[in-house]
């Protein structure tokens, strides 16, 4: 099965084309989604088989790699050109096997869910085509054995994200948000681009397995180069995974359909950055500086995003900030050497975050608003949604035995081993997470209905939307424990850090309990503020600390910074164009033309006034002379002519005589 893993990205890709070109744009045509869902189901099955084979050690050699030639091109080595092959292929290692399952599963569930959520949309078929396309790109990114192909899929993922965020492009906000998302990630991609160039310059290959071998060979990769490459990749990852300072696009990306948010902006695409860092971990292993940068970027992001989530009222934005924050956790873990921890959290997070988004979608579908201030008391109206989302919230908060507990615990343990200040800050972020997540639950589901109209019309979603929720809730409960059991996950992804990076400062045994206790306290605090149907405390706090609140609501001004950056680049562009049209074109080129013309005019003038006049003058002179002479000879008198001849002859005579 694993040798046919190329089918996993290829099939959805073909299906997306088929849907796009061969299906009618009919709002109620069921075939397009069914085709997409069936394909995804097949992919899921295949991924599960691969996962099973990988975990049972049935794949030899491991990690499995299959490679074909994509094209060959002219390359150089020491000033000599030669023909180099660019491979395209699959590389299935533990991380890839896990990611395959995660992506196909979430994609499948989201597609099923969308049957209900997107029902009746005029561009229903296109939606499924995009979803398939996205999934294909994401799967390609996961399985590719070639960084160039990975990058290609990386960009394609970005484009499908662009298309899906802007799916309701008639509204200005999604159109703007899609552009913003694309541009921000593209900004990060520039770094990745340079990193790729550096990799080629250093290694002369893009094949990941080969890079890993070369990087381990002493002397190939200098620390400086490794740092540069690592920072470049981090730059790309920060863009795609919405890390500080490029996280600004993700909250806006919530303008897209909610299932899309669940799939792309929670579970899969935003995880691509983390996944890429994990894939190129051998480079970070060679550069402590890059490693540290990864950790700190993750930490800062986790903290900032968590604080921003505290004040958001838009249910999807809360989730978006929480996503950013959780991605920060993962990155931080990777930066601290917690390869397994990062990927583990990536996996569990995918389940419960997708669940949260889908649940939020269910809520929005029901009350037709994103604003939590207009919700409240929905738990009775939507029990299934409430139940599943509550499970997910417990998971994200890290309560035993939910999935989040295990992964978060693993991260904190690892960070503790790395740097205890970091640990403190990260734990604080975890407490904040619990706080704002429960704030969301309380505001949405608990207490009185604040908007009676909406509450009255609210209803539980259809089962086609609910059973994906249930499945994800189940996974949110068990996946952590199951995967963590006996170090199963660690064994599966199985990355061996170089000796120097293995910091074996084991965390105190009590740490998990302490953290859990703190989280419970945080939840209680949250209930204290928001769970009692009485928001006076929250309001007064808000009034007292309004500067802090407004800073948080303005997302620390990062949006403003980026807007000013955009404005600045616009100004530069305007200037460049002014320079181009006024200085270069009008001044130099046209000016040169003008000078030429002036010269031409001058020389024309000179010609007219001087040269021509001179010529005319000679003409006139000879004419005058002619007139004069004619006055001598125009009498028609033969004898006069004869006289002239005679005079001439006599003059000649004089001439001769005078010699």
């Amino acid at each position, binding site marked *: 099965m694993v040798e046919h893993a190329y089918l996993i990205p290829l099939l959805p890709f073909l299906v997306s084309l088929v849907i796009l070109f061969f299906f009618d744009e009919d709002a109620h045509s069921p075939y397009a989604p069914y085709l997409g869902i069936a394909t995804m189901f097949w992919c899921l099955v295949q991924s599960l088989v691969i996962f099973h084979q990988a975990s049972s050690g049935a794949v030899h050699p491991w990690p499995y790699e299959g490679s074909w*030639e*994509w*094209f*060959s*091109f*002219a*390359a*150089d080595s020491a*000033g*000599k*050109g*030669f*023909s180099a092959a660019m491979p395209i292929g699959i590389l299935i290692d533990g991380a890839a096997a896990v990611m395959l399952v995660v992506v196909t599963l979430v994609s499948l569930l989201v597609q099923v869910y969308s049957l209900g959520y997107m029902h009746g949309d005029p561009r229903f078929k296109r939606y499924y085509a995009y979803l398939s396309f996205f999934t294909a790109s994401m799967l390609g990114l996961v399985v590719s054995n070639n960084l*160039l192909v990975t*990058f*290609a*899929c*990386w*960009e*394609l993922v970005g*484009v499908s994200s662009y298309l899906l965020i*802007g799916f309701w*492009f*008639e*509204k*200005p906000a*999604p*159109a*703007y948000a*899609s*552009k913003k998302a*694309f*541009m921000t990630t*593209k*900004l990060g991609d*520039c770094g990745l*681009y*340079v990193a*790729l*160039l*550096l990799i*080629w*310059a250093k290694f002369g290959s893009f094949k990941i397995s080969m890079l890993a071998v070369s990087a381990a060979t002493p002397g190939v990769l200098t620390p400086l180069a490794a740092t540069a490459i690592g920072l470049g990749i981090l730059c790309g990852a920060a863009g795609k995974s919405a890390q500080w300072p490029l996280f600004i696009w993700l909250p806006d990306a919530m303008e897209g359909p909610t299932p899309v948010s669940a799939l792309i902006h929670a579970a899969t695409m935003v995880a691509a950055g983390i996944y890429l860092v994990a894939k190129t971990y051998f480079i970070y292993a060679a550069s402590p500086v890059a490693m540290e940068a990864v950790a700190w970027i993750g930490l800062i992001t986790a903290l900032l995003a968590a604080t921003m989530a505290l004040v958001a009222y838009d249910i999807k934005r809360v989730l978006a900030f929480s996503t950013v924050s959780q991605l920060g956790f993962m990155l931080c873990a990777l930066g601290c050497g917690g390869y397994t921890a990062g990927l583990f959290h990536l996996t569990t997070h995918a389940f419960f975050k997708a669940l949260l988004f889908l649940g939020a979608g269910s809520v929005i579908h029901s009350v037709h608003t994103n604003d939590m201030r207009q919700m409240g008391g929905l738990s009775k109206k939507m029990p299934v949604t409430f139940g599943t989302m509550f499970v997910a919230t417990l998971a994200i908060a890290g309560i035993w035995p939910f999935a989040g507990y295990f992964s978060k615990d693993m991260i904190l343990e690892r960070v503790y081993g790395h740097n205890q200040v970091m640990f403190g800050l990260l734990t604080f972020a975890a407490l904040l997470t619990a706080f704002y997540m429960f704030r969301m639950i309380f505001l949405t589901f608990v207490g009185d209905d604040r908007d009676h109209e909406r509450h009255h019309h609210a209803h539980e979603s259809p089962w086609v939307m609910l059973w994906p929720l249930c499945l994800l809730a189940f996974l949110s409960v068990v996946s952590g424990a199951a995967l963590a059991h006996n170090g199963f996950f660690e064994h599966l992804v199985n990355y061996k850090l170089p000796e120097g990076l293995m910091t074996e400062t084991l965390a105190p045994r009590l740490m998990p309990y302490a953290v859990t206790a703190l989280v419970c306290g945080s939840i209680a605090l949250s209930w204290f503020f928001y769970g009692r149907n009485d928001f006076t405390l929250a309001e007064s706090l808000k009034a007292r600390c309004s500067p802090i609140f407004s800073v948080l609501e303005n997302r620390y001004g990062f949006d403003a910074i980026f807007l000013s950056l955009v404005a600045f*680049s*616009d100004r*530069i*562009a*305007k200037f*460049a*164009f*002014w320079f*181009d*049209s006024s200085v*270069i*074109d009008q001044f*130099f*080129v046209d000016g040169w*033309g003008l000078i030429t013309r002036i010269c031409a005019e001058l020389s024309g003038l000179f010609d007219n006034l001087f040269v021509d006049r001179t010529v005319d003058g000679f003409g006139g002179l000879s004419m005058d002379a002619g007139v004069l002479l004619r006055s001598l000879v125009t009498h028609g008198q033969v004898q006069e002519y004869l006289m002239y001849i005679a005079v001439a002859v006599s003059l000649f005579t004089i001439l001769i005589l005078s010699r």
Partner: protein
Amino acid sequence: MPILTLITFLPIAGALVILCLPKEAEKPIQITALVSAGLSFVLSLCVLYGFDRAQPLMQFMENADWIPSMHVHYALGVDGLSLPLVLLTTFVTVLALISSLGIKERIKEYFFWFLVLEAGMIGVFEALDLVLFYVFWEMTLVPMYFLIGIWGGPKKEFAAIKFFLYTLAGSVFMLLAILAVYFNSTPNTFDMLALMHQHVNWSARFQILVFLGFYFGFAIKIPAFPFHTWLPLAHVEAPTAVSVILAAVLLKMGVYGLMRISYGMLPLGFAWFIKPLIIIATINIVYGALCAMAQTDMKKMVAYSSVNHMGYCLLGIAGLTATGFQGAVMQMITHGIITGSLFLLVGVIYDRAHTRDISAFGGLAVRVPTYAGLMFLACFASLGLPGLAGFISEFFCFLGAFQAWKVYAAVSVLGVLATAAFFLRMMEKVFLGPFNNKWAGLTDMNARELASIVPLTVMTVALGVYPKWALDIMKETLIYMINTPR
């Protein structure tokens, strides 16, 4: 069979036939033009079929005396550097002719000039004799002048004369350089292949001077900063099909000349200029993209994006690496295809709305989904999206340049960002957002427009997904060029 001669002169034959047809016979004129250009394309496909990809040297050579007293030959040939460009020329010309079927006035002259133009362009890429090269080079100039000057926009006369004078100024220097090369070669010759071996006798000083002469001619055509300002004007004023040819083929003549003549004949001059060249390339990329960002006219924006994209070609060349060369040639092809389709697409909207102002539209994706889809594809290809043609060539250019010029290449990456910025902004303003009801009467693309654009789109995707068969044509020649001892 002198197949290259046939390819080159079939359009001329078509042009002569058109000349004999009466003015009113519009259909026969159009058919003649299409048939002759189409035959030329088919023949160039035959050349591709017979082309030996493992052979780096000239193939399908033809040689005959032309002006024996001056050692001028009629010599044609193609190798991996020129064949893709010949193919591009014949291919794009057919499509441009299809899109020109919408031309309503002075059809006879239009198609006549167009075919003459095609012959000139093909000839430039095939010529192996400097005089022949120069003749073909100049042969493109006059048709272009008329095509812009007669069928152009409101400022067509100015644009045409500016284009003409500017490029002519460049070619005068080129002519000087050609003569200098001729008189300093032993034995005196115009044969480009023979001249490749002459540089051992030439001093660095001489090579630099000659290089500058050639460069001036080529840089204007490319167009390299700061000689690029004729381009936006000419593009804006030219009719759609002419813009397509201008961007897709004419600009390539400059880069081709740089690679074939400047690099091949004047290694010392080239080496001396390599630093300025990389700077110019960087400026072209970043500055071109910035200028494009400031545009409100779609066509002008695409024109400046051409400046930006030709910068990638220069970047690739300046690396002096096989990869960079590969990228440059590939970039020429992909830019021809992508920008060709972009211009065609802009022409489509202009034909309907009679405006190209970006802010005049809005939400068109609802009304014209096919058009929007093709435009999106072309824009994404142009901004270098992987899977579409632009990416691989751009990447090779960077890859090639990066090996020699790390900082400049890294700075140039910003150009990629700016390119994305202006294309996305254009797409947002034109196709997304609330629908502007002013355009409720807009119709989607008709069959003729589809016929001219879809082949380009297909090529865009095909080259992006499977660039192998384009890369294989040029690969060996470029490796040979790099490996030739200099």
